[in-house]
């Protein structure tokens, strides 16, 4: 699945976009974040506080309990500050 990171999540992970293959036990966004944290210190730092992160699944806002599948595009980002 494709994972996108924006703003300080992109800076801390050092990645804007990547394709990952988490184990089948990863079924929702919370599970994905937990697995991503194990990918390195930058990920652990960026993803340490789930409550600071907003999520979109296939470009629709979602909650951390949203189910995910291998064809999905998951985006992780802080609360938005446009306008």
């Amino acid at each position, binding site marked *: 699945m494709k994972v996108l990171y924006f*703003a300080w999540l992109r800076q801390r992970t050092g990645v804007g976009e990547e394709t990952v293959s988490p184990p089948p036990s990863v079924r929702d966004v919370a599970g994905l974040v937990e697995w991503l944290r194990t990918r390195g210190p930058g990920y652990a730092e960026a993803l340490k506080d789930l409550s600071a992160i907003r999520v979109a699944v296939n*470009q629709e*806002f979602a909650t951390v309990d949203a189910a995910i599948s291998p064809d999905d595009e998951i*985006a992780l980002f802080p*609360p*938005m*500050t*446009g*306008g």
Partner: protein
Amino acid sequence: MAIRVQREDFDPGREIEALTTGNTAVGGVASFIGLVRDVAGDQPGSAMTLEHYPGMTEKMLAEIDTEANRRWPLEASLIIHRYGRLEPGDRIVLVVTASAHRAAALEACHFLIDWLKTKAPFWKLEETGDGDSKWVEARASDDAAADRWTRRHDKDAAE
């Protein structure tokens, strides 16, 4: 209804004119223009960079615009939002709404900018003047401003 997400500046006068030219059903036009201020938090700022989520940005702006057109009888609407590096005084965003009467145009314009701030995937990185930069934090007052329209709508729906 039209949505544009672009790096380039825009000309508000020209945009407003283009939106309403030829439509004589329009009796009122409202607009909002957001500018970069020279203050970052409580520090003097020099510039900022706006990052966004290409694809989802356009989609969310279109959804918000659709919602405005559902709630108010608009003849035309336009949202332009810039991204990239912007300096104090630069235009960031333009919202224009046109309707037969002023109330619909004014309310829809206010609604669009309030919802856009909390629902469109943009993030501001402010240069703090000392060579450093800082991501702008979302403000509770922006959530409250957006929420006002939700409550009002829900209340209307319940009546």
